[in-house]
């Protein structure tokens, strides 16, 4: 599995990978933190979109800007920025999501001297005609901002090519998840996690080649077990930065067959239509794809989406991974739990921090949950 090894190597030090890419190809590296970042536009502008994760360091410098009741993801990313870990970034973009990221954007703009800074003030509601129009307007503004800052021209054909590439990546990831769903033992959770994370780090053409090769390899493996013995689980939450969670689940006799995560299925849900107005098509995907709880569609959308996944994936139990101090997810938890309870789907809430996982406690809880399934 040399493709898997390669992705593991990239993720061992994503910043080193990005620095090398920048040096070797001269491409500008543009950071972002959220699956609403229009990567397709960044790529079409000849730059490389790099998703930032915090690197597990202690928070020291960020304490001077953000109180302790801010989530560890936002604090961790700011820590990296303040200590120079991101000094290779040519720019950073902030799509509008939650209150904490919105303030992080201000703090970044005022305190991080290197690279350009750009707010992409997306609409919060996604279910009206005017919101869809505004979504297009904002994406067009973003194109204009990038063209000006990077001194490039983003052409319609360039955008369409970029969209085609990202569509291929998304289609391949959907295929990968379908494989995992059908033959859970074929792909380990840790590998699945790595593959998804690499999608936001690697040069996208290289990534697609790797991904397609991996899918071929997986499909050809003989470990297919047609009657899975593991208990089938779904993960839901925001950003998961803990591959160990998957391992703990597998050691306890479970397997993750699907998810509703920002770093998982929400990233690749929805394909962008190939039309003469690529920006409108991009906007349409954002309005239609599975939503982050910081955005609004009809008030029941997330529960419906999760229940549908549970049914389609023959899921036995749901694990909520709640990043401490993540307001949008914490507000949604009771209603999602109630919907699952009503449908008779066992579920458990595990509170996580972005940097450190409480190994012992998390393991015990996962084991207890799986024993009772």
């Amino acid at each position, binding site marked *: 599995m040399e493709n898997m090894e390669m992705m593991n190597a990239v993720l061992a030090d994503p910043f080193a990978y990005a620095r090398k890419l920048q040096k070797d190809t001269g491409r500008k590296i543009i950071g972002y933190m959220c699956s609403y970042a229009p990567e397709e536009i960044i790529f079409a502008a000849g730059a490389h979109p790099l998703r930032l994760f915090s690197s597990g360091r202690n928070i020291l410098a960020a304490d*001077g*800007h*953000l*109180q302790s*009741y*801010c989530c560890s993801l936002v604090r961790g990313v700011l820590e990296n920025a303040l200590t120079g870990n991101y000094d290779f970034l040519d720019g950073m973009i902030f799509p*509008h999501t*939650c*209150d*904490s990221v*919105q*303030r*992080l*954007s*201000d*703090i970044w*703009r*005022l*305190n991080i001297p290197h690279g350009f800074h750009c*707010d992409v*003030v997306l*609409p*919060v*509601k996604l279910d*009206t005609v*005017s*919101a869809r*129009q*505004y979504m297009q*307007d*904002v994406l067009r*503004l973003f194109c204009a901002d990038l063209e000006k800052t990077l001194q490039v021209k983003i052409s319609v054909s360039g955008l369409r090519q970029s969209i085609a590439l990202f569509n291929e990546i998304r289609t391949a990831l959907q295929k990968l998840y379908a494989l995992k769903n059908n033959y859970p033992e074929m792909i380990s959770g840790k590998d699945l996690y790595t593959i998804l994370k690499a999608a936001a780090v690697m040069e996208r053409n290289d990534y697609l080649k790797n991904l397609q090769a991996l899918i071929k390899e997986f499909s050809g493996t003989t470990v297919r077990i047609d009657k899975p013995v593991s208990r089938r689980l779904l993960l839901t939450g925001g950003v998961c930065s803990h591959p160990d969670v998957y391992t703990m689940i597998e050691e306890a006799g479970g397997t993750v067959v699907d998810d509703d995560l920002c770093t998982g299925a929400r990233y690749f849900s929805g394909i962008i239509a190939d039309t003469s107005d690529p920006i409108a098509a991009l906007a349409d995907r954002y309005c239609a794809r599975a939503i982050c*709880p*910081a955005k*609004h569609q009809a*008030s*029941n959308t997330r529960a419906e989406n999760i229940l549908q996944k549970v049914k389609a994936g023959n899921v036995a139990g749901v694990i909520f991974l*709640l990043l*401490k*101090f993540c*307001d*949008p997810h*914490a*507000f*949604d*938890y*009771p*209603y999602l*739990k109630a919907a699952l309870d009503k449908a008779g789907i066992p579920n458990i809430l595990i509170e996580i921090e972005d940097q450190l996982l409480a190994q012992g406690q998390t393991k015990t809880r996962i084991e207890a949950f799986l024993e009772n399934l």
Partner: protein
Amino acid sequence: MAENDPEKEKRKIKSVKKMKAIMTKYYRQAKLAWLTRKKVAWITSGGPVEPLIAMDIIPVYPENHGAMIGASKMGRDLCGKSETMGYASDLCSYARADISCAPLKGGPIGGLPKPNMLICCNNICGTVLKWYEIQARYFRVPLFILDTPFCHTQFTKEASQYVRLQINEYIAFLENICKKKMDYDRMKEVGRLSVEGQRLWQNVLDTACHKPAPLSAFDAFFHLALIVTLRGTQIAVDYYKELLAEMRARITGGIGAVSTEKYRLLWDNLPIWYRTKWLSEKFAAADTCLVADTYTSAWCGALQYIDENNFLNSMAEGYSRIYLNIGIDEMARQVVNMIDKYDVDGLVMHSNRSCKPYSFGQLDIQRIVREKRGLPSLMLEADMVDERYFSESQIATRIDAFMEMVKERKGS
């Protein structure tokens, strides 16, 4: 003894009684809406209430309700109950208290009247979006969201068009529920009254420029209720006219909120509702008046963008550019302006666990204030409603140490 202390009697703001009567009547009418067949809308504190008034819909404010819960010291209990419903203890305590109040009919007024619709404007936070989604599911009523794009550094032409279109959608939403058309003449009049009310409120707050200040931020926290709940009505206009006259009379009579006012401070963030009296007395004992705050002025801070003769068109910008929907550098600029305007000696910041958009960025604002004006500042860690996050001994010690600094600086 304190009851008939003539000095204390003289210092009491007489309008308080009237204010209480207006608020009692307002809540009684709202609670009896089912009898009078009037529709009730729940609306966020920064939301555009004017179209509701013009449509004869009774606006009710869950955030005002949250403040009442806090002030009646019922926050601990109700927030605790929301936790048993599955809500994390670090979520906004207004939201937690209100959410647990709905099924329990708890709180100081036995719960808010049931809404016929929910109006949520996200110009103050993303929390209200989640809160109103929860209530929309609970009460099974329609929810209208007025999405005001965040103005980090600018209010774009595109954002302006988007908000303006939504105001039309908002009015159509109301017309559909009420089964009647908007009366645009009435709307014009409500818009005019709203602007007049906001102007009067600003005038009331401005009287604190005088030394000694005739009212403190703690008084403003109380008298704020009408500009929030009855903005756009003649009642609010009449009340603030009276309050303004009383403040002017206090200035003429040399009556200050703190009789021994030597030091003047600016407050940032929401009040600590269950400890306003304690804090007010604590500062007064140090000859200190908190003369102004960034919170109560938020209801008149966007006046510059509103054209009273063209209210519906200009309110898009007015509602989008309020204090919490702007970047922290712009917030710092406004804080510095207030420091100069009210001639204060220091800044007290409430680092409020409940309000992330208000609190994140405070450390940068603190630094900017120090650089620009060299003023001492104090950061108090607490929560606006949930008493469990308030440590009296720790806060008392920090206030004492801070006041030493303020005194030393002013003395030198």
